[in-house]
């Protein structure tokens, strides 16, 4: 059960989001992405002290500012059905990741070759070690 899988499954469900600044947002989840950025609709915002309230038709919240999200219990049962599909997707991703990684060392090698001095075993000693002379 991945946190973001649960969140994706919770789309169109009501939820409570608390931000790091203490404000809470009650609304229906419209969409989310891999950074946990979310769109809510029909939102009620509650101030940190719980003494002020605002209604907003929709809002976008940056994922990195979220403390936690409370999601209806029934959503967890819906994730399991999707879990199989998600795993398949993950396997494919793994395969592609391998391909990417095969490409990367070449680029790194070129970069290293440009900066690395010959006869130093490929790795530059830390700068400070060169200094005391």
């Amino acid at each position, binding site marked *: 059960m991945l946190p973001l899988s649960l969140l994706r499954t919770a789309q169109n469900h009501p939820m409570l989001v608390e931000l790091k*600044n203490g404000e809470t947002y009650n609304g229906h989840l419209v969409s989310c*992405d891999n950074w946990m950025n979310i769109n809510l609709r029909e*939102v009620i915002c509650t101030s*940190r002290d719980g003494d002020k309230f*605002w*209604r*907003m*038709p929709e809002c976008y919240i*940056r994922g990195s500012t979220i403390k936690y999200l409370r999601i209806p219990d029934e959503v967890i049962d819906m994730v399991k059905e999707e879990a199989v599909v998600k795993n398949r997707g993950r396997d494919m991703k793994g395969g592609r990741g391998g391909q990417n990684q095969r490409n990367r060392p070449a680029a790194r090698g070129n970069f290293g070759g440009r900066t690395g001095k010959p006869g130093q075993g490929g790795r530059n000693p830390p700068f400070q070690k060169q200094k005391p002379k």
Partner: protein
Amino acid sequence: MASSGDKSKNQSGDQKEKKRKESILDLSKYLEKTIRVKFAGGREASGILKGYDPLLNLVLDNTIEYLRDPDDPYKLTEDTRALGLVVCRGTSVVLICPMDGMESIQNPFISQD
């Protein structure tokens, strides 16, 4: 300068990348409209959205900052100050919502207490 062969090889990956990069937020619907923005650290402002980029940097015009309680950086007061034309740094944007339809309300959860 990728050759056509490279392109076809990477196409599926590129499409995936595109899908992932596509923002879930379509700010174009807010262009020339007044939006409310909350920032990391507690500042809040509203202004007419003039422009934006994928990093959530914003250009706001006729911007008003909502001033806060000097003792509590997260508590707003009635005071405001005019900032005019502003570029908002995307990394510090916490929340965006349209001003149109945003209203202060009484406790809607009171029946639950």
